């Protein structure tokens, strides 16, 4: 995951190493791979792709866009109007910090899970008889 502050545009970008196509595939075929739950089934953290609705919070992240090259999941957010005391980098670190550990874990697990789903889907497609 990389983060970038665009001061002139008053925007910040967070680019994941995960592709939005992988998130969409898991949302459809294996949604459990996009969430952490406790023993009682309560959601603790989630990852989602919802075009136009980026958000990041301690309980989850929604990627609202994808990069033109590679289709990597992207969060586009607004910077505060005035630069905070600790600078924009410090502000963004505080905003992302609560979710960072979870995001790193999902960036490790999502590609493999998406590859399994793709293989299973291809196997199912190959088995379908069209008359």
């Amino acid at each position, binding site marked *: 995951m990389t983060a970038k502050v665009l001061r002139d545009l008053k925007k910040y970008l967070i680019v994941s190493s995960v592709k939005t196509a992988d998130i969409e595939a898991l949302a459809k075929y294996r949604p459990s791979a996009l969430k952490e739950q406790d023993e009682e089934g309560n959601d603790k953290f989630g990852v*989602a792709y919802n075009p136009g609705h980026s958000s990041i919070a301690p309980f989850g992240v929604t990627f609202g866009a994808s990069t033109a090259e590679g289709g990597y999941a992207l969060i586009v957010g607004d910077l505060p109007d005035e630069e905070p005391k600790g600078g924009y980098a410090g502000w963004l670190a505080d905003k992302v910090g609560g979710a960072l550990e979870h995001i790193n874990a999902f960036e490790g697990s999502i590609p493999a899970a998406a590859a399994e789903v793709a293989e299973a889907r291809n196997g199912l497609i190959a088995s379908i008889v069209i008359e």
Partner: protein
Amino acid sequence: MIQINVSTNTTRRTVNAEITATPKQVFDDLGINTSSSMVNLNGNFLYAAEFNKPMSELGVEDGTTANINVVVKADGAAE
């Protein structure tokens, strides 16, 4: 993404949902029957017609936590 604490007469669950999700989608995912129930979102009564509105149109901000209470309406008259 929003976090929703859903409470009914018998259960309490915490679920994550998109800001574009509707209360009905949340109830369906959790298997909650809202017929004969009063529902309130963050303390505001929700009419049945609002169950199909996205959370963003019901006063919930993206990245925040919301509370939904589903209370079964019981017959009050004792015989």
